[in-house]
């Protein structure tokens, strides 16, 4: 479903992604782990083309993201076409980024029919908060609305960038419950998180990144319990 191939990305002279390749099958849940600054957010942001790559390419469901191949060349797409492609890629931000001047329902209705919007609010268990403004919601509720909004374009894949790390500990659970639900319903997901317990329980595969490359990947038992790489071990010994 998602194919990332040989992606390089630099900010100025700093090379943040140094040849990342990753395949995610339909319905698969991939959790990305790695120390701060290893390029996890940047990887997610290149997948929906919020960041342009310097080398390599990304496809979603076989469709090249951000470019069109014509006559041996890659032509950059117009912004309008990129925006259309992004409807296939849901993105959930660490700090929610709800629109503060719109109610929970209006936030979702910005990209969906009203009846659909209500359905997605229901899915994250917040119909009773439909007419609340983001500032009137707890952090966990805000993130659940943001997830509902990301689902409202009916994307083929959903990317989560540390969806719980801006939350108070007692609010993390309700958001992870929603993620668990999505995973069970067969949503294709890439989740950057530091919640190792969640990763172990929900991930089909864990990818460990360090310093702009994927160091190792595999099923949770393998990566979490029997990591091959020294750097993975060092990271896990710190977070476990």
């Amino acid at each position, binding site marked *: 479903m998602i194919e990332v191939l040989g992606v390089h990305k630099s900010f100025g002279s700093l090379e943040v992604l140094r040849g990342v390749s990753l395949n995610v099958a339909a319905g698969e849940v991939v959790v990305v782990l790695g120390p701060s600054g290893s390029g996890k957010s940047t990887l997610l942001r290149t997948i*929906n083309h*919020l960041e342009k790559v310097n080398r390599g390419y990304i496809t979603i469901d076989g469709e090249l993201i951000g470019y069109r191949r014509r006559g041996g060349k890659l032509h950059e797409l117009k*912004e*309008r076409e990129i*925006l*259309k*492609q*992004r*409807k296939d*890629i*849901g*993105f959930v*931000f660490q*700090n929610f*980024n*709800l*629109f*503060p*001047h*719109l109610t929970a329902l209006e936030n979702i209705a*910005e*990209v969906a029919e009203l009846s659909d919007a209500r359905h997605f609010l229901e899915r994250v268990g917040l119909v009773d908060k439909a007419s609340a*403004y*983001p*500032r*009137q919601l707890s952090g966990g509720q805000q993130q659940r609305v943001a997830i509902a*909004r*990301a689902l409202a*374009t009916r994307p083929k894949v959903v990317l989560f960038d540390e969806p719980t790390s801006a939350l108070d500990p007692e609010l993390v659970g309700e958001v992870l419950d929603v993620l668990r639900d999505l995973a069970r319903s067969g949503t294709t997901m890439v989740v950057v998180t530091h919640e190792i317990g969640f990763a172990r329980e929900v991930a089909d595969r864990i990818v460990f990144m360090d310093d702009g490359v994927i160091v190792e990947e595999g099923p949770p038992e393998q990566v979490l319990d029997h990591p091959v790489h020294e750097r993975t071990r060092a990271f896990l010994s710190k977070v476990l």
Partner: protein
Amino acid sequence: MTSSGTLTPVSTKDDDLSALPVVPARHPWRWVGVAFVLVLAAQFVHGLVTNPAWDWPTFARYFTAQSILTAVGTTIFLTVFGTVLGFALGIVVAVLRMSKSPFLSAVGWTYIWAFRSIPLIVQLLFWFNISYLYQRLSLGIPFGPEFVSFETISLISPMGAAVLGLALHQAAYAAEIVRSGVISVDRGQLEAAAALGIPRFRQFRRIVLPQAMRSILPNAANEVISLFKGTSVVSVMAIGELFYQVQVIYGRNARVVALLMVATVWYIILTTLLSIGQHYVERYFARGDRR
């Protein structure tokens, strides 16, 4: 804190603070201030009422005179058109100024630079006299054929020149106000909108502008009020707005103070109405802030 090893008991059963009555803090100096201001205000009102130089009978005679009411109407007309056209053009200029295209951005920058540099009064006189400069205005290819052409005099009346001048001047300031509002909106908002695939124009209209309005509005209200009083500048073009009209009248009857008061009180009344309007509009755009 416990390292000293001893813990002093903070409260005991027979020392229940919640049962004691609360005495609010007193502010004697505030009352001194209030008294001082009240005395000053009383003196001021006393002076207004008893000093015959204010000439209130003349004030009363002219305050609602037909000529004054018409002039108030003209002032309102100029303010409304100056504001509406100025802000409409200002939004366009702001968008140009923020464009990713260096050329368009330079066009926006140049507009703002030019119209902030030229004094309003110079600009007004320029438009007023443009028919001396160009007898005809035409649309066509430079050095080539003309498609349409107009007599400048018939196209730009004094009133037209005034509205044009005020609007062009206002647009430069409006553009900067709009831009300041837009750059105050959190980048994450645009990113979220982009990630949702919301089209560009809709992002601006539905997501950015309503949030930018929070910081645009107080500044915009300032601009409208200052334009409203600034319309008195067009009296140089002999347009019968409020300030011009009172000048004409006191030129005839020499009751300068009374007539200036007529204009002043009208300016105060209309500014008050604008301020009240501002309050409600701001409250509307602050709706996401209510708890």
